[in-house]
């Protein structure tokens, strides 16, 4: 009964929205792709909008993502850790896993460095690296990879890079022209063109990698590897 009522209500709303939306979804002729591309000297305008003209949004997004990663760790700290942590490691899968890890590192470099030239960018790259590395970790021992992560003092580096990211983003949001002086002479489509965009892409990629690796790691530690 309740589900039928819900169905009727939702169907009613859906019909009204579907009819009302028709005149909003008309063909528009204007968009400012060329304008953005010329002003910033960058081919991929999505990345340009994302990291220059609306970088104020992205600033909040990075803070949100980092904070959720820390909150996940904080919340799960008091929960019981999975007891049976004796993971069976098969040698051949471990080799394939490490292959996937290395491949994901290559893909990360490509997607992040070319973020302003072709589709891609910091977020996609960071997540590619994180999922590749966690696949490697699942196949060849999670605790070892985790220990490696701690030995590299990744927590401290992460914190420092986080502060660098947010302050440079704030600066880039308010004074967009300053960074463009850096590499103005580079030709259109060169690897180091487009002001601060490539640098922000790399920083965001590393940051997203660290945060998502942390989240996956927490989930695995509480629920046990597959």
């Amino acid at each position, binding site marked *: 009964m309740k589900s039928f009522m819900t169905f009727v209500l939702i169907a009613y709303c859906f019909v009204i929205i579907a009819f009302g939306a028709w005149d909003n979804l008309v063909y528009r002729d204007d968009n400012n792709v060329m304008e953005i591309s010329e002003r910033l000297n960058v081919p991929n305008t999505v990345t340009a909008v994302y990291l220059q003209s609306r970088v104020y949004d992205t600033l909040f997004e990075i803070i*949100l993502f980092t904070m959720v990663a820390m909150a996940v760790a904080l919340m799960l700290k008091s929960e019981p850790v999975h007891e049976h942590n004796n993971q069976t490691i098969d040698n051949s899968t471990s080799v394939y896993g490490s292959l996937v890890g290395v491949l994901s590192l290559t893909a990360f470099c490509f997607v992040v460095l070319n973020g302003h030239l072709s589709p891609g960018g910091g977020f996609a790259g960071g997540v590619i690296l994180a999922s590749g590395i966690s696949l490697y970790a699942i196949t060849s021992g999670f605790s070892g990879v985790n220990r490696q992560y701690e030995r590299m003092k990744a927590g401290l580096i992460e914190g420092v890079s986080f502060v660098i990211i947010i302050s440079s983003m704030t600066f880039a949001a308010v004074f967009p022209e300053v960074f463009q002086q850096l590499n103005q002479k580079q030709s259109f489509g060169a690897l180091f063109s487009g002001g601060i965009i490539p640098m922000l892409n790399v920083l965001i990629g590393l940051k997203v990698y660290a945060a998502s690796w942390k989240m996956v790691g927490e989930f695995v530690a509480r629920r046990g590897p597959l």
Partner: protein
Amino acid sequence: MDILLLPTLPIITGSIAIILHRKKRLAQVLFFLCCLAVITILLMQLNQEKTFQIGGWGDTGITVGFDALNLPFMLSSIIVAVAVSLSAMTRATYDGFFYGLIMILLGSLNAVYISRDLFNIYVTFELASIVGYILIAYGKKGKQIWAAMKYALLSSVGFSVFLIGAGLAYARTGSFSFLSLNEIGSLAGALIFTGLSVKSGLFFVSMWLPDVYDSTPAEIPLLSGIIIKAEDYLILRFITYDSFQWLAPMYLGVGAISAVIGAVYAFNARKSQRVLAYHTFSQIGFIVTASNIHGAWHAFSHSIFKGLLLLSAGKISERLKTQDLSKWKGKMTVGEYIPLLIGSLAIIGFPLTSGYVTKGGIIDSVPLTGVVMLTIASVATVISFCKFVFIPLSKRKLKLPKLLIMSYVLLSSGILFHGVIKFDYYKLGESLAVIGAGVVLYFLIRKYFRPISTKPEKLDESLVLFVGFIAVVLTMLIL
């Protein structure tokens, strides 16, 4: 450009505090420095109106601005945050992470207030509400986690609806900026309004609220209270644009109904925090009914007096280990009673308090049907706060922590200062008549108080109520 410091300064200091969350002392020092800076910047903006395009990107970029409507909200959020942290410093359970979270909350709320861009509002508001979920679940008790879960599910559904509205607005105008809100069309306006209404604290749509209030420790409800105010600010802001004008009768109706039903639920409830939660429904109803600058100042005074009430009632219930008002008889000390009394006087609109000033302003600015409903709601408010005021006290002396007293003094001085400087004679008779009627009614009908069923607060039912609310608003659209 200096208004951009309002969000970014707390956010950067908050991030530093979160990274160094093992150093609690440092986080507290950073917090007070940051609050001082924000208040200074805020007072420099007094009586100014400005807009600023970040980076000068036109339609593709983001615009921020500041005007008279922002001031009460930003002021109240910072006062409440200071009071919360003063009170939190008396406990050992809150670490540096907590102060970092409050700073980020403050920064993201300021970002919501100064933003003039639909999508920027989504991002910043989502950040504020995520801080809210984390703070609600901070105690890690089952009930708190469930309350946070309910809040998160409901508001995520709401944000999806909001995003559809924002997308429709972009499809029509080619910009997310508030400048184009006059042309976005009524459907997009309806979806934006209903999508955000989940967090507004109105009855029927924000049914997650009582659970949050009665399960969390004394400080957290204050913070979720200021998150609610951000959404009320957006309601008041949107009504000034053409695409939302047709919703004005809806605002009036929903606000007035929420004011009355909330108060009726409240005087029937037994637990102190639930009474206060239902009164939030009622007072938000007042704000939404007015939907003008008087409403904004009522939101300011509501943040502060409700903060005082929640803090003192929460501390009492933690000491006595029960929220049941009938068990407080003869156990409350004088020191605990005074802040409760000041808060109660303010919420019922007693002369010389801030509630008197702002309620008077609201009653003056609404149409006649609104006046009738709001007067009924005021009488019901008096009835339920008689429960707090007429509790017999104990003779015992209890020493309260100094910081807690400081936070009580901060909030009460806000109430009294606002009430004294804006005092006006011509509402005096009306206010005293309402209070007298309420007290008499309380002694007549207090035998019949029974808690009303909490079924609408269950997760599924509150979601159905929300969808029903969308359906009602859309029906208004086609009529």
